[in-house]
């Protein structure tokens, strides 16, 4: 049983939040549960949902790579809710479940990922499992593949999504249909 039940859509009357929820539903991430929980704190809901959507679906870094990273982070956080959601857009761009799983596994040895993608996958994994090795040398390596703006885009995306995964795990949330 969740710690806090999401508000039903009919109880949410803020038009901006309703539009953001619609955008999330169209993308597939998040479904109605995340904004339904956040809607209990209206001052937070719009800002956090907008940040979640912008960091995932906008910017210069490939959305498919962000989707692989997002699932990897949800699995690291032990969050079944976000781990069970999938981006419709990433799927339409050709991202399959096998590649998503590979991004959470031994991706360093996997020929399907470029050197740049492997660095980004290590960035996400080691940010929370081995932060002591995400040092100046690690960032210098990243700059061979990405601009500083792209690294900050990735870093902020990773930090925000991991934080929300930890939050939803603490809320005891699960997706309506597991993957």
């Amino acid at each position, binding site marked *: 049983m969740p710690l806090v039940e999401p508000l039903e859509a009919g109880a949410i009357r803020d038009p901006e939040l309703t539009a953001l929820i619609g955008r999330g539903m169209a993308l597939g991430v998040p479904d109605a549960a995340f904004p339904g929980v956040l809607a209990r704190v209206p001052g937070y809901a719009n800002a956090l949902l907008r940040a979640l959507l912008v960091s995932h679906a906008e910017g210069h870094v490939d959305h498919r790579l962000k989707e692989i990273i997002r699932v990897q982070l949800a699995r690291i956080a032990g969050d079944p809710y976000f781990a069970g959601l999938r981006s419709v857009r990433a799927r339409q761009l050709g991202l399959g479940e096998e590649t998503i799983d590979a991004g959470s596994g031994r991706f360093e040895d996997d020929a399907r990922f470029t050197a740049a993608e492997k660095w980004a996958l290590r960035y996400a994994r080691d940010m*929370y499992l081995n932060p002591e090795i995400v040092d100046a040398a690690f960032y210098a390596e990243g700059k061979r593949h990405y601009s500083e703006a792209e690294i900050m885009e990735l870093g902020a995306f990773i930090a925000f999504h991991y934080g929300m995964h930890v939050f939803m795990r603490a809320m005891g949330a699960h997706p309506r249909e597991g993957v």
Partner: protein
Amino acid sequence: MTHYEKSSRFTAADKVALRFCELMALDPGRIDARFHDALRRHYSDEEIVELGAFIGFNIGYHTFFGTLGFYPMFSPDGRLVSQEESARIYGSTPSSLAGQPARA
């Protein structure tokens, strides 16, 4: 951070909130029905969501900023200081929970 459970300067509600933060960062598997009940004895659903989202956001960003090697721009007495001086003031290794991944 380390002795809050025995400290008299925190209320029972404060202590549950601090425990919530500690468990979210280090041991989320222990956030179970019993802990939910403890939270609900002191906080409303709205306050629990507010606390949880705030803590989650900070867990995510503090680790990220830690990897960037940033230090506070101001000293404790409010002076604008260089990053080198700030590192000397605040220490190169902050007292934190970083590097301790969530347990299943």
